[in-house]
């Protein structure tokens, strides 16, 4: 269970803009530590955003996504009070799900 994602979902008419800030180190596996040893890769691979039970975005990340991944997109067909759920899973199998209501 990683750290919570911050999610903002704002409705304008029936279109919702979702902004997400996930917390994750997104280590590329390219960096070396002070002794010269490679720091192993550790990054989010799957991201899924749902509105109630419908998937509204299904993403795959590589290690090139910046630390603390930011994601923003829009979709139609939701209204204030609908639930937005953001789930991520990383390369170790760790996962995190957070939820907000559309405001």
């Amino acid at each position, binding site marked *: 269970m990683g750290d919570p994602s911050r999610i903002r979902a704002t409705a304008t008419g029936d*279109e919702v803009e979702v902004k997400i800030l996930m917390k994750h180190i997104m280590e*590329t596996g*390219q*960096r*070396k530590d002070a002794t010269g040893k490679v720091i192993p890769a550790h990054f989010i*691979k*799957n991201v*899924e955003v749902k509105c109630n039970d*419908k*998937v*509204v*975005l*299904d*993403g*795959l*990340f*590589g*290690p*090139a*996504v*910046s*630390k603390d*991944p*930011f*994601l*923003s*997109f*829009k*979709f*139609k*067909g939701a209204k204030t009070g609908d639930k937005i759920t953001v789930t991520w*899973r990383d390369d170790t199998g760790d996962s995190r799900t957070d939820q907000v209501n559309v405001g």
Partner: protein
Amino acid sequence: MNLNRRDMLRITSVLSAAFAVGILKPNDVFAAEWSAAVFNAKGLDAAVKALGGNGFAVSKDISIDAPDIAENGAVVPVSISSAVPNTEYMAILVEKNPSAMAASFNIPTGTQPAVTTRVKMGMTSQIHALVKADGKWLVASKETKVTLGGCGG
């Protein structure tokens, strides 16, 4: 491999049983599959091939919003958007990164074909917005100069 009707029935019934018993729950399955071949590919051409594409065309209907110069290669904001009808898939690639594919998205009906995220760039490079629409692969590219590389080391 030829799947005849008998095989299909067998496979379907095993899967249904698995769902029914709860071994495989629909919620457990992320629709998009993370492919090492795609995420290790060097450059746009190799990535499209790994995705099963047979080449791509440049499209003026795809736009990329990224800085001309990135002060910090570790955090480069990129927005991509597609005006191509039936856009079902969009991806951001950084040509000169150790692996070009940075992030990809399946776009369900009802979702705007536009995403914004932040990527790492190792050096000055083309950023590509790759789109799949109606089975066709389309691309738009833009160069972003990097003063301080973002891959570390």
